[in-house]
C-alpha cells in the first residue's frame, strides 16, 4: 500500500512535469513561472517548496535523538521569514533579479562577484540536496525493505525523470497544492496517533524517563553497520539464530541484520548517540551528545537558520513570482503563518517516538520515526494506511524541495558560471547535478538530515545574508568588499564544516564551533565586507543603484 502511495506521488509529479513541457519556451520560463500570483497563493507555494524532507522527517527524528531542544529547528526555519520580510523581500523583488548572482551583478556591476555567488549557490544547494536524497532513500528502504543504496538510486531516478520531462516549477499552484497536501498528510496522522495511543503512553510522553531497559521483546533492524557497546550480559536473538546471552564488550551489528533484544535487557550504548529520555534530553535546549554548551549550540542553530533562509536559492526565485515588492513582502509575512501551523506538529511525532520507538537511536534510524510510528501503534490495516500516507507526504516533500534545488543549482552552473544558457543545456546540467547528488548521498547514510540541512543554512547565512543585507541597505558597499567578505564567509562556514567533518573532534566547544560555525562566521563575514568596503570607494552610481530598491510601486503607479 505504501509503495502504491509513493508511486502515486511520483506519477502525479511526472504528469505535471509532462504537461509543463509545452509551457517551457525560454530559460526564464524554465526558471520561474512568468505569471504574477496573489501573495497568499505564492506564500503557500513558498511553504510547499520550503518544507523539505528535513522538516517532514528530520525535526521529529532529532527530537527522538537529541531531545526537546531540537524543536528550535522549527522555530528557526519559521523565523527566517521575518528576517526576510524585514530586510530583503521587497527590495530584492524590485531589483528584478531572479537569483543572488543576478542581484550581485545588478547592484554592484561585478561579473566576478556573480561567479563567486554562483559557487556559493552550488555549495548551499549541494549541502541541502544530499540530506533530501538520504531521507528519501531511507523512507523507501523502510517501506520496501531494500538496501539503502537502492532507495537513494530510485529517488534519484524519480527526480531525474521528472526534471527531464520539464521543470515542475512552471506551475506555482502545484507547489501551493503540495503545501496543502503535506500539511494534511502531517497533521491528520499526528492527531490520529495522539487519539490512538493509551493514556499511559500520553502521560509517559510528557514525563519522559531514560531509555535504559527494553520494556518488551524489541527487534532492532540495522540498515547500516553500527558498533554496539554492551555493559552487562544481554540476552539477544540475532537474525533468527538461536537466542544467546552476550557478555559485556564491543559488538559490530552488520547492515541488514536484525537483533531482537529480550524483555528487561539493558540497552546497549552506541558511539555518537545517547538514549532518549535522559536528563539532558528533556531540557528545552539543543545539546547534541551532551557536549556541555546547550545555549551556545542552540543559538548557533538559530542564527544559521534565521539568517540563512534569505539566501536559499530555491526560495529566492519563488519570491519573483510576486507582482511587486509589496506582494513579495506580503508573501513573506503569510509564509510565517503557514509554516507556524506546520511546525506545531513535529513535537507530536518526536515525543511519541521517544516513548514507543526509543530503540531507533541504536540503528541510526531516528530519521524514520515519523513513518515508523503508525505501524507501532496499530498493526492492522489502519496503521498501514497511515504509514502509506506519511511516506507519501515525506516523498512529496523530498520531490518538491529537490526539484527546486536542482533547478537552482543547474541554473547557477549553466546561467552564471557558463555563458549563454539554453533550455537544452539547462536540462542536461540538471541531470548531471542529480547524478552527482546521488553519488554524494550514498556515503552520507550516517549523517542526520536536520543537521546537514542546517549546514546549508549556515553557509547561506555567512555568504548571502551579508551580501543581500548590506547590498540593499548600505550604499558604500563595494564589489571588492563583497567579494572578500563572501570568500571569508564561505571559507569560515563551508570550509570549517568540512574541516570539522574530517577532524571529527570530540563533543565539546570545538565540535560546536566547527560543526555549527554560524555564530562566529556570520559576524566575521559582515565585518570583513564593511571594513574592505570602507577602504575603497563605491562608484558614483552606487547610491542610485541602492536607493531605487526602496522606491515603492505605489508612487510609480500613481504617475
Amino acid at each position, binding site marked *: 500500500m505504501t509503495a502504491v502511495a509513493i508511486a502515486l506521488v511520483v506519477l502525479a509529479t511526472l504528469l505535471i512535469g509532462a504537461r509543463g513541457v509545452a509551457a517551457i519556451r525560454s530559460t526564464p520560463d524554465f526558471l520561474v513561472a512568468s505569471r504574477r500570483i496573489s501573495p497568499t497563493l505564492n506564500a503557500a507555494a513558498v511553504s510547499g517548496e520550503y518544507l523539505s524532507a528535513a522538516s517532514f522527517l528530520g525535526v521529529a527524528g532529532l527530537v527522538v535523538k537529541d531531545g526537546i531542544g531540537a524543536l528550535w529547528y522549527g522555530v528557526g526555519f519559521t523565523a527566517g521569514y521575518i528576517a526576510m520580510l524585514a530586510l530583503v523581500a521587497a527590495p530584492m523583488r524590485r531589483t528584478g533579479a531572479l537569483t543572488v548572482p543576478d542581484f550581485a551583478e545588478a547592484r554592484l556591476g561585478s561579473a566576478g562577484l556573480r561567479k563567486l555567488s554562483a559557487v556559493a549557490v552550488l555549495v548551499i544547494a549541494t549541502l541541502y540536496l544530499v540530506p533530501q536524497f538520504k531521507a528519501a532513500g531511507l523512507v523507501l528502504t523502510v517501506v520496501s525493505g531494500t538496501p539503502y543504496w537502492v532507495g537513494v538510486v530510485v529517488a534519484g531516478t524519480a527526480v531525474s525523470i521528472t526534471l527531464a520531462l520539464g521543470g515542475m516549477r512552471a506551475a506555482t499552484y502545484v507547489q501551493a497544492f503540495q503545501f496543502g497536501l503535506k500539511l494534511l498528510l502531517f497533521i491528520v496522522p499526528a492527531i490520529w496517533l495522539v487519539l490512538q495511543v493509551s493514556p499511559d503512553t500520553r502521560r509517559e510522553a510528557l514525563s519522559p524517563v531514560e531509555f535504559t531497559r527494553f520494556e518488551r521483546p524489541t527487534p532492532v533492524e540495522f540498515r547500516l553497520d553500527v558498533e554496539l557497546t554492551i555493559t552487562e550480559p544481554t540476552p539477544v536473538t540475532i537474525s533468527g539464530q538461536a537466542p544467546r546471552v552476550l557478555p559485556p564488550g564491543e559488538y559490530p551489528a552488520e547492515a541488514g541484520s536484525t537483533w531482537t533484544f529480550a524483555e528487561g535487557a539493558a540497552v546497549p550504548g552506541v558511539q555518537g548517540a545517547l538514549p532518549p529520555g535522559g536528563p539532558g534530553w528533556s531540557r528545552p535546549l539543543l545539546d547534541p551528545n551532551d557536549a556541555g554548551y546547550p545555549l551556545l549550540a542552540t543559538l548557533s542553530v538559530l542564527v544559521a537558520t534565521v539568517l540563512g533562509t534569505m539566501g536559499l536559492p530555491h526560495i529566492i526565485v519563488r519570491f519573483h513570482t510576486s507582482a511587486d515588492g509589496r506582494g513579495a*513582502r506580503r508573501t513573506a509575512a503569510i509564509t510565517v503563518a503557514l509554516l507556524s501551523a506546520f511546525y506545531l506538529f513535529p513535537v507530536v511525532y518526536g515525543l511519541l517516538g521517544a516513548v514507543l520507538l526509543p530503540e531507533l537511536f541504536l540503528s541510526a534510524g531516528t530519521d524514520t520515526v515519523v513513518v515508523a510510528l503508525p505501524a507501532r501503534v496499530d498493526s492492522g490495516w489502519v496503521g498501514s494506511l497511515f504509514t502509506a500516507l506519511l511516506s507519501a507526504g515525506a516523498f512529496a516533500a523530498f520531490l518538491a524541495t529537490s526539484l527546486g534545488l536542482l533547478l537552482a543549482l543547474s541554473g547557477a552552473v549553466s546561467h552564471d558560471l557558463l555563458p549563454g544558457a539554453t533550455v537544452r543545456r539547462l536540462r542536461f546540467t540538471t541531470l548531471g547535478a542529480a547524478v552527482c547528488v546521488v553519488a554524494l548521498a550514498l556515503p552520507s547514510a550516517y549523517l542526520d538530515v536536520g543537521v546537514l540541512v542546517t549546514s546549508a543554512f549556515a553557509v547561506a547565512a555567512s555568504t548571502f545574508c551579508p551580501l543581500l543585507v548590506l547590498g540593499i541597505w548600505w550604499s558604500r558597499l563595494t564589489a571588492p568588499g563583497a567579494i572578500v567578505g563572501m570568500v571569508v564567509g564561505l571559507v569560515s562556514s563551508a570550509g570549517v564544516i568540512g574541516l570539522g567533518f574530517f577532524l571529527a573532534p570530540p563533543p565539546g566547544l570545538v565540535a560546536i564551533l566547527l560543526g555549527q560555525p554560524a555564530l562566529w562566521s556570520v559576524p566575521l563575514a559582515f565585518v570583513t565586507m564593511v571594513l574592505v568596503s570602507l577602504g575603497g570607494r563605491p562608484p558614483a552610481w552606487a547610491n542610485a543603484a541602492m536607493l531605487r530598491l526602496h522606491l515603492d510601486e505605489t508612487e510609480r503607479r500613481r504617475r
Partner: protein
Amino acid sequence: MTRQRRVAVASPQTRLALARRRTGVRADLPHLPHLPHLAPADLERARRMHRAQLRRALVAVALLAALIIGLPALLAVLPWLDEVRIAGVAVSWLAVAVLPYPALVLLARWQLRRAEQVERSGGEP
C-alpha cells in the same frame, strides 16, 4: 481599474547582453532594468523611504533577536521552568514547542503593516 505594469521577465545579465548588442555600451556599468538613474524627485523620495524603512526593519530585527536569543537564554538560566507544569506539560516545553509561533506571526503582521504604512505616507513621519 488599475493596470498592472508589465515587466519583461529576463535576468539582468540577459538584458545587459541585449542592450550591449544594440548600443555597444560598455559592459562594466550596470544597466538597471527600470531606472538606470533616479530623477531628482524620485531620489528624494527614495532617500526618505530608505531611511524610514531601515529604521523599522532594524526595530523588527531587534525584536526578533530578543525573542530567539532571549527565550533560549531564559530557559538556560531558569531550569526550574522544567518542573512547572500547565495541564501536565512542562512550561519550558511549551516555551519552545508552542509559544514562539504566535509570537512570530504577530511580529510578521506588525512589521508588514508598518512597512506598508511607510509606503502610504511616502516616508514622511
